[in-house]
């Protein structure tokens, strides 16, 4: 074996081992969920057959149809408003003259590092005083606020990469700043907007603490919240049914990930470095 081949074998072995370590917990609960109800698999054996009973039981008992619907409503609300507001703001920061850019960006930087565990208490009492707890609003509005700093920094970097000549030519021809944004600049950054959409979708879908605090009504639970109640409920203490429930909640994100993984990975790796 020559030197180059040996390097390749080592690299593949490392990646294979890493992949196995990552996949093992998921394969393990998948086997558990697919096992025959009533039989106890040890987690070290392959199930004797494939049974979907656990999935059906989890779906009907856990209220996941409502949970998934609630999650979709919250995600659509958060992602659409965040993208709209952040695009406008990022454009103004990068391409228009704004007095006081530095303090405004510093204010946004604060929100980028802030642990939101510290503000949920105040959010809860404000939402309660307006009668908004147990509504989608109590989840959508705070998450828009929390998503805005990252989104503005992300989109501002994208606007920065567009050559100045493009918007200046349109300016000379008398196009308004709004027309320049919608007709010339936005088409240039569609890929960046799509990547941001994917990131915001996943982060909003997985949000848990805010839902735990704001939602008491079982019909209003998001999918991860419904899952946590289900996993904590002794009546459905069967780990196989809990495993099936976890797979239901992970499924929408997994399906999206299979199609959009390149966008997501590049988004997290480059986006992180850009900051």
């Amino acid at each position, binding site marked *: 074996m020559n030197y180059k081949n040996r*390097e*390749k074998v080592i*690299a593949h072995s490392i990646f*294979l081992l*890493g992949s196995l370590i*990552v*996949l093992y917990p*998921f394969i*393990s609960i998948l086997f*558990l969920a697919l096992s025959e109800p009533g039989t106890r698999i*040890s*987690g*070290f054996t392959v199930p004797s057959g494939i049974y979907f009973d656990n999935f059906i039981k989890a779906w009907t008992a856990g209220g996941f149809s409502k949970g998934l619907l609630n999650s979709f409503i919250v995600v659509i609300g958060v992602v659409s408003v965040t993208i709209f*507001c952040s695009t*406008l703001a990022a454009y103004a920061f990068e391409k228009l*003259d*704004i007095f006081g850019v530095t303090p*405004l960006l510093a*204010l946004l930087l*604060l*929100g980028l*590092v*802030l*642990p939101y*565990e*510290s*503000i*949920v*208490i*105040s*959010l809860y009492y404000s939402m309660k005083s307006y009668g908004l707890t147990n509504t989608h609003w109590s989840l959508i*509005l*705070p998450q828009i*606020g929390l998503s*805005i*700093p990252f989104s503005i920094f992300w989109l501002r970097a994208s606007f920065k990469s567009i050559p100045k000549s493009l918007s200046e030519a349109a300016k000379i021809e008398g196009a308004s700043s709004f027309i320049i944004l919608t007709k010339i600049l936005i088409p240039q950054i569609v890929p960046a907007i799509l990547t941001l959409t994917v990131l915001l979708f*996943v982060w909003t*879908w*997985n949000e*848990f603490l805010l839902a*735990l605090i704001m939602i008491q009504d079982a019909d209003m639970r998001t999918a*991860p919240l419904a*899952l*946590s109640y289900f*996993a904590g409920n002794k009546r459905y203490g069967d*780990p196989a049914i809990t*495993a099936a*429930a*976890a797979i239901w*909640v*992970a499924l929408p*994100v997994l399906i999206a*990930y299979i199609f959009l*993984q*390149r966008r997501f*990975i590049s988004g*997290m*790796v480059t986006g*992180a*470095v850009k900051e």
Partner: protein
Amino acid sequence: MSTNNIYRPQNKIDYSSYLYILPAFILYILFVIFPLGDTLLTSFTEWNGISEKKWVGFEQYSKNLANKKITSSIKHSFILIIFYSFLPIIIGLIIAGIMIRVKIQGLATYRAILFLPQILSMIVVGISWRWIYAPKGPLNSGLDFFGLEDVSRAWLGSFDYALPFVGLIGTWVMFGFTMILFIAGVQKIPSELYDAAKVDGAGAIAEFFNVTLPNLRGEIIVALIFTVTLALRNFDLIYITTGGGPGTSTMIPSMFIYKKAFQMNQVGSASSLGIMLTLLIFTLVSLILIIFREKK
């Protein structure tokens, strides 16, 4: 354009620009900055969530700092930083060091798998690991299989083992991210730098410390900030795996904030703990940036 314009000062601020940032800032200030200010005010009071707030100054802070359970929860967070941050970064760096200039096929598939823990809800991750660590789960079955029945136990129910075993879940969540981040960073290092090191007679280890490590500084800063803040917040995973127990052996500040504010009606105390957590994270992030900043 009217002719009047020539009499206007040339550098007049165009206020319409502010209309673009207005919607974002209204939402941001209303739902992030205002609650932060409100939390700060509440942290100086004694409040059960219903009656009038009573101003007590810094009393909540001094009480929190004197509370052994709270100081040990902060200590737990620092132990978790070892698992969430240091271990994944060391693993990622070693692997990136090995992977210099290795071009391999199927990298995209490996990357997609290694990134998987980043996209899944911590509730799903926690449920998977609860099963792995369960008394009759895969870990114990594996130990029994190798004749190590004496070692197997309810890992998350153990006062000694619960914290490090929750920490290992964090290592599992993070190592794929650091690996991919550092491998992407290594591929951007110009190969001339490595050739020059070879000419100087540097071995693999010297090459790693003289070329690879300094050139990954940006990526290391990102990985540190990302993993350290997650280790300090970390609510979801603790909530679903141990709930802070057994006893208070896996309690962390964010779990205390939740319990104090929503189960014990000590809203003032919870708020001051929230501000303390915020200050701790700001301090650590600033330290990371200062220590690793570019030396000129």
